[in-house]
């Protein structure tokens, strides 16, 4: 229990650090956010608007930095991320539209990669030197290639060359035969699925290697344990013995995975840019191009918090699965 409290304490600290960093990033950079907005602004702006925007960014000169900081934290905690300067809508509205795409894509791909990768890793480790074990060096290739390069290669081969899948976007707006209506209808859903295949395949291929290698190496270590030998000596079927080894081998793999969650998420976000996929990553790219600081801050914060929550869940899973972790605390 105390371990759990310690972990939660850490995550609260990390979330606080992320919010603080987020507060300081635009203020430490050359020029202030308002200047950046004004240079990109087209058309006229009234003094009231200017004052309003200054207040929005908290660069109202009357406020001290400390006061700005507390205002920012208060706004963030109440879910007020400010107003996107390039889109002229609240940041939370933008995020609400983009997040389902990203969460759907990365979530599905990560779960798929976990299930497939663990299974392949277990078998590769169990039958070391077998046919499946030969997959391991191949998977090294996918692990080493940056996500978006892998995405580009898939896009080139299966999109531009073979025309099996569309080469960008999240769905078709219209086609020769049908007009798509967004919502839970089959033509639209199938269009969404079709567009998701390549980006999802990229994330799966890129992240599966970590699971395979980690699981295989842990299996090999675990198989030397006495309890696996006992299971075999008792005459359990091979697959039961394998399951016993696998169950124990999976624990360190999970805790290793928590380390790489942020890599997976940032990698996947780049994949969105490659595929022009309408998620948070593409939005981030556009926001940086148009120096839309409120939007940038909002996205950074949401992504960081998502990574922290994923870490927390993995920690929970670890504590639930491994009795030793509870006792050591």
């Amino acid at each position, binding site marked *: 229990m105390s371990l759990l409290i310690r972990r939660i304490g*850490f995550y609260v600290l*990390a979330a606080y650090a*992320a919010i603080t*960093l987020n507060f300081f*990033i635009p203020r430490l*950079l*050359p*020029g202030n956010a308002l200047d*950046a907005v004004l240079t990109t602004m087209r058309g006229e702006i009234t003094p009231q608007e200017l004052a309003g925007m200054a207040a929005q960014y908290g660069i109202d000169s009357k406020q001290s930095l400390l006061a700005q900081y507390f205002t920012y934290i208060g706004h963030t905690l109440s879910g007020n991320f400010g107003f996107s300067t390039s889109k002229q809508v609240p940041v939370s509205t933008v995020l609400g539209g983009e997040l389902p795409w990203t969460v759907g894509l990365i979530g599905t791909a990560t779960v798929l990669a976990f299930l497939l990768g663990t299974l392949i890793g277990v078998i590769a480790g169990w039958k*070391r*030197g077998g046919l499946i*074990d*030969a997959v*391991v*060096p191949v998977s*090294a*290739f996918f*692990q*080493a*290639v*940056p*996500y*978006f*390069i892998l995405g*580009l*290669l898939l*896009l*080139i081969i299966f*999109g*531009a060359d073979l025309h099996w899948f569309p*080469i960008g976007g999240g769905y078709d707006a219209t086609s020769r035969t049908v007009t798509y209506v967004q919502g839970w209808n089959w033509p639209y859903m199938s269009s969404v699925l079709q567009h998701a295949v390549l980006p999802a395949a990229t994330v799966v291929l890129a992240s599966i290697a970590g699971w395979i290698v980690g699981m295989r*190496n842990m299996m*090999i*270590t675990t*198989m*030397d344990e006495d309890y*696996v*030998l006992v299971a*075999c000596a008792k005459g359990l079927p091979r697959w039961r*013995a394998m399951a016993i080894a696998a169950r124990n081998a999976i624990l360190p793999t999970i805790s290793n995975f928590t*380390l790489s969650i*942020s*890599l997976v998420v*940032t*990698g996947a*976000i*780049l994949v969105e840019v490659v595929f022009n996929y309408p998620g948070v990553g593409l939005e*981030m*790219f556009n926001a*940086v*191009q148009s*120096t839309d600081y409120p939007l*940038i801050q909002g*996205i*950074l914060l949401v*992504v*960081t918090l998502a*990574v*922290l929550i994923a*870490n927390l869940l993995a920690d929970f899973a670890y504590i639930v699965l491994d009795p030793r972790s509870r006792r050591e605390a």
Partner: protein
Amino acid sequence: MTSLDPALAAAAADPAPQLEPAAPRHSRTRRHRPPAKVLVGGAITLFFVLMALFGPLLAPHSASWVANTTNGTPQAPTGSLWLGTDNMQHDLFSLLLIGSRSTLLIAFLAGAIATVLSVAVGVTAGYVGGVADEILSALSNIFLALPGLLILMVIISPLPVPDKGNSFVIGLVVAITSWAYGARALRAQTLALRGQDYVVSARVIGERRIRIILFEIVPNLLPIVAASFIFTVIYGLGVYVALCYLGVVSPSSGSWGTMLQGAQSNSAIGNGWWWWYLPPALAVALVGLGLALLNFGIDEIINPRIRSARTGRGGVKFQLGLTPVVRAAAREGDAR
């Protein structure tokens, strides 16, 4: 010795499955031959390092050279222009050679700086312990959770142009977001080493702490340092190419990421101009592959048990509960 024994000589000549893996002669040759993965990975890496060192000198044309000024469409590869041209009629083969330098320079620079940082943080946290450990560990965990690439996009894009073109600034900034992984691994290993007898005895005879860290601890961490260096170089490569690809960084000399960005913004994929985007994408992929194979090899040297029977010991079958390990390698492992 073995030549006197006809049976053994025959066995040595014929790579039969019955060959004893720990036979003295065999183990001696094996010990001096690194795993095949290391050789292949090292060869690929060496090739690209040489390319980065000498490629810009060998490039047939300069980065600003154009084949002609009238044509606006990219030219397919020909005998004289091996990789064709882009829409501005630059020679893409030259751009690939020239771009290798900044790409690899920043990847290795970021790897080196991040490795120094991670050794400093990880070993200090592991060896000193206490409050310092708590603070440094929390710090590295926070850095692990932060989306490094996104923060880099935000930090780098408003930098003044001279800084953006400065390899050291970019390498440093990339390194700052990438040291935490190595620091964690090194801290864990330092904790394990700290209780070892030889470290305790060094402490007992009154060696200074800094000497113990530098001469007793760090040399025994070298394989992990090497692995984390390579990991960071791969990471730095990906991040730098990504930053160029997104147009956040645009070095004047060009890089592979810049080529990809040019291809992307001119929709080269949709137009089928494969010679524009495929060579830099494959080059990045190959460098990554070479480094990853090296890392695999290092992993196998650190932990000989994970070696695959296919690449390691010709035909020795693994049996449940018994892990055949080449004896020499096992002894190295134990010593560590």
